[in-house]
């Protein structure tokens, strides 16, 4: 393996275009364990962290931009970002220990394409866009179009995510993310649920609900969203949200949970995340 630390997006694209086995990385917190467990080594390790655009978070003209290689600890420490996207910040902060937090990135969490990736349901719930660079220039796509299945993305060999963009949320809008893991730290989600709501005088006017770890890719739950919009989040609405979330699951049986258990937990977490998002949006 050869290590390369390009300082521009073009240089990084050039390295990928020249060699199909070259791979980009940010924190390497997925990449190195995978290589150690026997996955094929890339020919060139393209370190994205020395490219200015890839690291940093900020808002300008109604759009937040987050560099794809920004450590998640930078996001959770950013008060303005966390104020605007409390759920996205808490989802990012759940990734691993402090050691991992100083390395883990949204770009890696998304493009590693694990169904259990914690930031991804919250990225989807916030309609975050990925700016993708490649030999043909840059294109902007919704994050849900990047992951196509476990370990699979829609990115071409010469493409990588440069940054993420998300609109500054309208007034009285907030998100929340909850996950269930068997212990309190350092484990992989059995289920993750992200909800984003806009409230107007106690009534919900817009809603997105996204679940992680219950299907090959993150799933949106349109029936739960429809139940929320127009409601005051009364008990009947929350039961409908839970039922819709359970029904939207297409989970696996594994040591962390059976299919039945995952369906049940998805309903409970969706309901609770909706309640928290509404409290935040009303505040």
């Amino acid at each position, binding site marked *: 393996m050869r*290590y390369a630390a390009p300082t521009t997006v073009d240089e990084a694209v050039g390295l990928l275009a020249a060699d199909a086995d070259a791979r980009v990385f940010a924190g*390497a*917190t997925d990449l190195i364990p995978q290589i150690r467990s026997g996955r094929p080594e890339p020919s060139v390790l393209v370190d994205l962290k020395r490219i200015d655009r890839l690291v940093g978070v900020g808002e300008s003209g109604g759009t937040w931009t987050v560099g794809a290689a920004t450590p998640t600890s930078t996001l959770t420490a950013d008060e303005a970002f966390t104020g605007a996207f409390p759920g996205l910040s808490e989802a990012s902060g759940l990734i691993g*220990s402090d050691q991992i937090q100083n390395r883990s990135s949204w770009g890696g969490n998304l493009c590693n394409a694990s169904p259990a990736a914690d930031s991804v349901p919250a990225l989807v719930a916030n309609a975050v866009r990925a700016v993708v660079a490649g030999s043909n220039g840059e294109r902007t796509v919704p994050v849900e179009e990047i992951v196509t299945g476990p370990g699979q993305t829609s990115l071409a060999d010469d493409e990588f995510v440069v940054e993420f963009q998300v609109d500054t949320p309208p007034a009285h809008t907030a998100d929340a993310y909850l996950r269930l893991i068997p212990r309190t730290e350092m484990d992989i989600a059995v289920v993750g649920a992200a909800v984003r709501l806009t409230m107007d005088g106690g009534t919900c006017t817009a809603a997105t609900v996204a679940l992680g770890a219950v299907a090959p890719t993150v799933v949106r739950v349109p029936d739960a969203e429809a139940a929320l919009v127009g409601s005051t989040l009364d008990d009947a609405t929350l039961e409908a949200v839970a039922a819709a979330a359970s029904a939207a699951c297409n989970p696996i049986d594994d040591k962390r949970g059976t299919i039945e258990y995952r369906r049940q937990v998805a309903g409970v977490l969706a309901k609770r995340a909706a309640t928290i998002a509404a409290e935040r949006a009303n505040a």
Partner: protein
Amino acid sequence: MINRTHVHCTVNGDEVDFLATDSTSLLDALRTELGLTGVKEGCGTGDCGACSITVDGALNCACLMFAPEAEGREIGTVEGIAQGDHLHPLQETFLEGAALQCGICTPGFLVAAKVLLDENPTPTETEIRYALAGNLCRCTGYDKIIHAVQEAAVQLNGAKS
């Protein structure tokens, strides 16, 4: 073909130069090229924290970094915690409180605990437990380690006032 990269960085405040094999971890480079064997390998995959170091002041796992990534960075290891022969209060309280048995995990705990106390001189027990969640110990049990960090915090705050 084995690629090597020349790396210039500081380690515990000293400027160093070394030749890193591109595919090796910073953990291996620190131990073999620079002889800093305080940095331990437990798992090699980010789970145990035995390889904890600081990079520009931030806590990291040396096993999850490629050695050439150290270029231009300030690296800190357990070897930099004592001042000459004078142990850091954390090292004293770990010894006095028997917060170690085999000792493999200890350098990582010390580095992680020092980062915590530098940022938050009066952490609660819960804050300590979360801050050290990335460090595993298979022998001692965590209570003695947590107590040693609490005691060191008391001593450090006493020394300041």
